[in-house]
């Protein structure tokens, strides 16, 4: 299996991202339809980009949460107050757990930073610079998936509203 004029990774990423003009995109599509080698590479580009498109981000806004609920995803909420430690057992009958990090004063347009660390190692597991939030409820929603069983189970979420404010801390001890 070989290709006389293989398409580069860069060209295929540009194609997938919609960055080629119509003629170039058509040429790529025609080639991918006829070529095993390039359709294989295009498949890898597509699978990687699709994983990002369809992922549930670690911090979700209320609209996204409502959208997932309407799609039939079974969501369980776990409310936590600042400074609290939550001993959390991931329920068997839920697809997604949402830790509701509450007790925050959040005005529309506020800049919210969320940092997720392992309690035991201190390693940063995730950082969101401009996190979505629910201003009405005064909460940030942390989406927790069953696959996260592979990550450290002891988690500290730090939520900072505005640069100069101290971070609110929430500790979650997961049991999957």
């Amino acid at each position, binding site marked *: 299996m070989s290709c006389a004029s293989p398409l580069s990774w*860069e060209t295929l990423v540009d194609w997938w991202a919609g*960055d080629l003009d119509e003629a170039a995109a058509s040429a790529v599509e025609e080639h991918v339809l006829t070529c095993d080698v390039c359709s294989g590479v*295009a*498949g890898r580009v597509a699978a990687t980009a*699709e994983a990002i*498109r369809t992922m549930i*981000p670690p911090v979700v806004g209320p609209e996204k949460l409502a959208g997932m609920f309407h799609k039939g995803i079974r969501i369980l909420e776990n409310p936590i107050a600042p400074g609290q430690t939550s001993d959390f057992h991931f329920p068997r009958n839920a697809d997604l757990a949402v830790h509701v990090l509450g007790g925050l004063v959040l005005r529309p347009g506020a800049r919210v930073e969320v940092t997720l660390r392992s309690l035991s190692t201190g390693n940063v597991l995730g950082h969101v610079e401009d996190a979505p939030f629910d201003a009405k409820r005064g909460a940030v929603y942390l989406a927790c998936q069953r696959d996260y069983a*592979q*990550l450290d189970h002891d988690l500290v979420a730090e939520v900072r509203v505005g640069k100069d404010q101290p971070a609110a801390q929430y500790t979650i001890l997961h049991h999957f």
Partner: protein
Amino acid sequence: MKAEASDAALLAAIALGGAGLREAERALCRRYAPRIRLYGLRHLRDEEHARDLVQTVLLGVLQAARERRVREPEQLVRFVLGTSRNAVLRLRELDRRAEPSPDEVLVAAAGSEAPRDPVNAALLLRCLGSLGDRPRRVLELSFHDELESDEVAARLQLTRGNVRVIRHRALAALRACLDAPTREGA
């Protein structure tokens, strides 16, 4: 290892009919289903719609091959591409399904054999985190939020060219990270 039949041989077998018909049709469907799905995902950004596209296009291909309207491989590619383009336009407007006919069952089976690459959420989170803030943001804005390059550039105060280069490298690095455990486990 048995060599795979060429498109020309498969089209000839389908046009001829007889005992080899179903096997030739199945082989043609297996070959083109993943490629059409890819086209569908690219333009429709939806797995279900991409599978619908695979069915629609392959049904048209089989019909045209049986009626000998498509005899040459070059004709086949043009036919697949043209039918895919038209079907994408229709699928964008319509969101309905018909009762499956026997042919639809056949091509649906081929479509379900198209490669899937489910990614573990924890691994994805870890790999995205390993990229660094800027490359991660470029990927998230490009592929999760589906912003165009100019919009990504404006958000991150980059040029469009920077966005493209960062995206090329970051997606390759992410792919390598996602594949790493597989290689280690092999």
